């Protein structure tokens, strides 16, 4: 039931008649606020909107300049709102200062001319104007205008500056406004829309946002999606971002990233910061990452990914396939690593070999040449690269001193390891890969 209501609301700007009732926020700021008898009380400074679960947030109050002082007037007092002025239902003005409450946003102070994310257009833009309209018995924020034309219109004085450019309006439901003061200023619709984006697009958007709004967007995203987006980001950009969010959130995001990527990020942070993030993780995850962090980036242990699907030689082909299906969202699950009864590396079996084999067969029947290239944890990067070029394989397996597989190095890990080493000097921030 509720969902239908929401969908009907989402199309609010296409409703007949609504466009003529739109009021430009940029246009009415600075205009008179009058009492019921038409006497001037003061000038409008700002609108306060309250964000709850609703798609279109209602105006909860006004900030009005009365005799040189800023006063707060409750939104329930608004009797009439036109594009030129506001009329109140009573003459009584409570001359209290406005105290910002959680979940509230100032339209001129926080949103207008600030950056927002246009979720449909996949871009970061500045708000040129905001539009209010009466809807469901309240005055609500329904639209946002990001056109340059509307921005230019605002420069002009007089009635021209207050005329809404309605053909350029984007529905409020399809943007993510991230400017707030700690309160939860987002709608479910925005969250849903964001969740449909590709990680790379989100990474681009994150990089275009300024610091505070950047962390706001991260807080808003689903951890899995945010972690994927983070993996797409430039290293230095990512560092800056982690400094801007809470340790708790950072720990959550890093836990969702590939362990080798997380370790690389942690390695670059200063020790105090990385320790406080690790302290917020589950002990098992923290232990695994600590171990990875210790490995130098110039050695196999420092560049490998620890995500391996390890199976015993006595297991069945069907077990291996089941395991692969369970981990299908991991892009490195292209096969399984087979070990003997003592846990020592035997072979890496590609998914295609598993499919071709009978599902009731034991994996040991598939263990045969070509065997995977194995290197020890402390193999220098140069030797790992050499192994790669000699064997032309897509990966090498990293084993510990007892011969047990502990990780894998894929071709892209090698690229990751080589690129910063070559460009850590002047080329920082080239973004050549983006």
């Amino acid at each position, binding site marked *: 039931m509720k969902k239908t209501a929401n969908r009907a609301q989402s199309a609010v700007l296409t409703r007949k008649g609504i466009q003529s009732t739109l009021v430009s926020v940029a246009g009415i700021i600075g205009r008179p606020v009058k009492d019921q008898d038409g006497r001037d009380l003061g000038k409008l400074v700002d609108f306060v909107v309250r964000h709850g679960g609703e798609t279109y947030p209602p105006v909860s109050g006004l900030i009005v300049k009365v005799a040189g002082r800023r006063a707060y007037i409750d939104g329930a007092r608004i009797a009439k709102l036109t594009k030129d002025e506001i009329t109140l239902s009573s003459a009584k003005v409570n001359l209290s200062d406005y105290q910002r409450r959680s979940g509230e946003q100032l339209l001129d102070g926080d949103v207008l001319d600030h950056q927002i994310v246009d979720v449909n257009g996949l871009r970061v833009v*500045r708000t040129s104007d905001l539009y209010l309209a009466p809807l469901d018995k309240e005055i609500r924020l329904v639209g946002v205008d*990001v056109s340059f034309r509307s*921005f230019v219109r605002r420069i002009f004085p007089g009635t021209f500056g207050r005329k809404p450019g309605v053909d350029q309006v984007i529905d409020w439901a399809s943007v993510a406004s991230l400017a707030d003061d700690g309160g939860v200023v987002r709608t479910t619709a925005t969250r849903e829309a964001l969740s449909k984006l590709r990680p790379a697009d989100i990474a681009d958007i994150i990089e275009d946002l300024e610091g505070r709004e950047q962390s706001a967007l991260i807080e808003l995203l689903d951890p899995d999606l945010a972690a994927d987006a983070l993996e797409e980001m430039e290293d230095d950009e990512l560092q800056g971002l982690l*400094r801007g969010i809470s340790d708790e959130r950072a720990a959550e995001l890093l836990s969702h990233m590939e362990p080798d990527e997380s370790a690389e990020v942690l390695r670059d942070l200063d020790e105090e910061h990385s320790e406080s993030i690790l302290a917020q993780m589950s002990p098992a995850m923290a232990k695994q990452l600590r171990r990875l962090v210790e490995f130098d980036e110039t050695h196999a242990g420092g560049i490998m990914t620890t995500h391996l699907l390890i199976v015993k030689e006595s297991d069945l082909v069907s077990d291996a396939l089941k395991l692969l299906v369970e981990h299908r969202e991991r892009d490195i699950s292209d096969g399984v690593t087979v070990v003997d009864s003592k846990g020592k590396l035997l072979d890496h079996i590609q998914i295609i070999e598993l499919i071709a084999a009978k599902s009731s067969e034991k994996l040991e029947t598939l263990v045969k040449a070509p065997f995977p290239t194995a290197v020890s944890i402390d193999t220098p990067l140069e030797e790992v690269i050499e192994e790669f070029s000699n064997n032309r394989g897509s990966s090498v397996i990293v084993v510990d001193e007892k011969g047990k597989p502990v990780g894998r190095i894929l071709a892209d890990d090698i690229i990751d390891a080589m690129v910063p080493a070559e460009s850590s000097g002047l080329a920082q*921030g080239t973004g050549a890969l983006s």
Partner: protein
Amino acid sequence: MSSKLDSRKLRLGAFLAVMGPGIIAGLSDDDPAGITTYSQLGAQFGYQLLWTLGIATLALILFQDLGSRIGVVTRQGLIGLIRQKYGARSGMLSACALVLANIGTMTAEFAGIAAAGSLFGVSKYITVPLAAFVVSFLVLRGSFARVEKVFFLLASVFIAYVIAGFMAKPDWSAAAEGLFIPSMPLTRDALFIATATLGTTLAPWGLAFIQSYAVDKRLTKEDLKLLRVDVWTGSLLTGIIGFFVVITCAATLHVNGQTSITDASQAAAALKPLAGTLAKELFAVGLIGAALLAASILPLSTAYAVTDLTGRPAALDDKAHEAPLFYVTFGVITILAATMVLIPGAPLIRILVLTQILNAILLLPLLVYMFGIAKDSRLMGEYRASKLMLTVYAVIISIVFTCVAALIWFTVSG
């Protein structure tokens, strides 16, 4: 052992990575317009007004430092922040004024290249289009890292001024006195040149550039310490180079009664009988390097400002179809400026004078906006400027205000 060495290497790498925007922004203030002004300062008043250069350098250090900090902390360019904090009109006006002033300044750079080229007997119809092409190619087609290296190479030419300064055998004690003991003849010319010195050193486009560059380079708060070293170095070098230009002209032109020069190439030509052919050529080479450096940054600074105003942040790494506005702005500025220098009979002198005035006028609101941003704790957080620093900024702003007011008054009253 080895990890310690690694971390030191890393630190040097990080330093080199950050090293740049401050030095580039600072040194490009020693462009032909700047060198002309410094030459006039020395030729007309000898060592007496060196202290105005000292104040200008101090102001440059403080505000470039502030600009880079604002860029790093807010992750936004100056024009975008002005729009956000001070509204649509302020943002639009600042952007328009900056674009106009930058076109004018760009014209001055090309004029400088044309003048320096003619010292070597090369026609401006060759040097100016060539310079426009080289600059656009370097900035737009080269990778960020390469562009930076070329910038540094160009900047190294500034050593020429220092050498010329020593060759002119200046009176060092008089120079020290002029630098540290302020005295001011209350004449129109003295006020004019003092204001011009301030305006050409602390240029609006430099302030806008350093902030946008910090954003484009994605510098983080961790980089701030190194960035500060860079900005201070760049600004100080600007002052030092200016100092040598002034004493060169004071020791040669002023002493010999040649007090009236109108452009830098005249200053260079005048050097020849006094300091030899080499000094003249060094002067000209420095002039070309300076003009190329500034001409690389000016369209960049303008393009940043325009994209910032519209809220579509663009970066050097973006492809042309990703950031059309960025590239269109860049192209228009470069082509317009080059054309103005090449059109026979274009009112060049008038354009240059108007540009200087526009720059000086624009500087004032920009400094005030930066002051407002610096004390805004919602924008700056823990990096909000202290009371002491705000007082220092305010003192500098009032000095600029006094000078600009005097300049306008003298210009209007003719």
